[in-house]
């Protein structure tokens, strides 16, 4: 199986995008998940619904409004310009922003479920042992929720690899910058290069299967969920 240089570029870019997105979501999604799992606020419902929106909204809707919002007349675009960052569409970081929104529920929901499964007791016990709130979070909650984090990380990564619509809307198809594997396959199909499309698609298929296989084979051993 011979891949062209542009195919390899597309695969590497896809992996980079998925890694960066997953990392950012670990950092930004965990506090959201923690808050959602602990709060009794009346905002829990609305915030939870907003987090889940990307599951329901078509990527065309998400991509279109990201394009408008990140454009020169949009709020995000004006912010990034005033910070001297330029405009985000057609850049790698623009794709990262889009992917973070797009994959948000895949990070938050498994982690939230894991936090909820811990219950109040272990944390209360830790509190009676005079563990500070921060201590309780890092030494009790995080280790107990680890399986949830693994699930969330794998799902987020895999979901970002499979992203297409949003990237198509805000990417501009620039080789090495925004032309990810899914877009490259689309290009091959449109150019009638079906052989190339099959090859790249096969790689994605095998990759996705292995990721999900790892996820579902690993899960039964995780007793704490």
């Amino acid at each position, binding site marked *: 199986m011979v891949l062209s240089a542009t195919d390899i570029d597309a695969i590497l870019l896809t992996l980079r995008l998925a890694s960066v997105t997953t990392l950012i979501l670990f950092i930004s999604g965990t506090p959201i998940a923690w808050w959602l799992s602990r709060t009794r606020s009346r905002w829990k419902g609305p915030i939870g619904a907003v987090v889940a929106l990307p599951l329901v909204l078509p990527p065309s809707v998400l991509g279109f409004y990201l394009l408008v919002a990140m454009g*020169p007349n949009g709020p995000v675009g004006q912010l990034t310009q005033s910070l001297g960052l330029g405009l985000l569409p*057609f850049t790698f970081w623009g794709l990262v922003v889009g992917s973070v929104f797009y994959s948000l529920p895949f990070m938050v929901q498994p982690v939230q479920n894991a936090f909820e499964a811990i219950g109040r007791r272990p944390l209360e016990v830790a509190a009676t042992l005079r563990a500070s709130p921060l201590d309780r979070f890092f030494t009790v909650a995080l280790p107990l929720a680890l399986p949830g984090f693994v699930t969330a990380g794998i799902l987020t990564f895999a979901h970002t690899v499979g992203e297409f619509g949003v990237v198509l809307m805000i990417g*501009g*198809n*620039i080789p090495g910058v925004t032309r990810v594997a899914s877009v490259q396959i689309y*290009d091959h199909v449109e*150019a009638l290069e079906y052989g190339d499309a099959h090859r790249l698609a096969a790689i994605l298929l095998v990759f996705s299967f292995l990721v999900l296989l790892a996820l579902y084979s690993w899960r039964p051993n995780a007793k704490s969920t």
Partner: protein
Amino acid sequence: MRSIAHLALTLALGGAAVIAQADEAQVAVAANFTAPMKEIIAAFEQETGHEVKASSGSTGKLYAQIKNGAPFEALLAADQKRPELLEEEGVGVASSRFTYAIGSLVLWSADAGAVDDGPAVLEANGFNKLSIANPKLAPYGEAAMETLDALGLKEAVEPKLVMGENIAQAIQFVDTGNADLGFVALSQVMQGGQITKGSGWVVPGDMHAPIRQDAVLLKRGADNPAVNALMTYLKGDKAHAIIHSFGYETE
């Protein structure tokens, strides 16, 4: 005897016309021809009573869909290659191909006055991005690259290129303000013979190979009077007037 034959013929034709009223055609249209096609369909439907459903997209995608059983009865492509392939592969009706429009390329900005001096704005290089349709897939993208080549600006401008998967997306990048400039189809910014929004420079025809757009009747629609009538209508004066008002030429 002759008058009876005449009468029979009239009745038969009249009957056919009545049946034709109920016919429906489903056609695939290249993205750049979406706007003129809407007007043509409106005029055609009013005149004939047929109904036409049009789906638009990039020619490459429409071709792939047709080859895999999409229910289209005709393809109005953005190029000549795909209709020719369909004919060769036996999906298109032999020798039904014809050039329904010859496209013009325009360098366009959403800002009024930005492109008034023509290609000078490209040479000045003060823009953020130049949006084009993917040259590998879209004839208008190919023409854009040829034009840059003819202007001697290909290397200078290349780092600023962004590509839409078709010409509709290429203009969308400019229209939303994310790219300052774009090479788009004149038909997308022209209505009634005038550029209606922003500013544009119509690229002289000698800077790129002519963008000849062919239509082909597909086997699926060979016996459908509605789509046959539509193909004939496309060659007529009324359709030509609409096609010209969007900045296309015809043969």
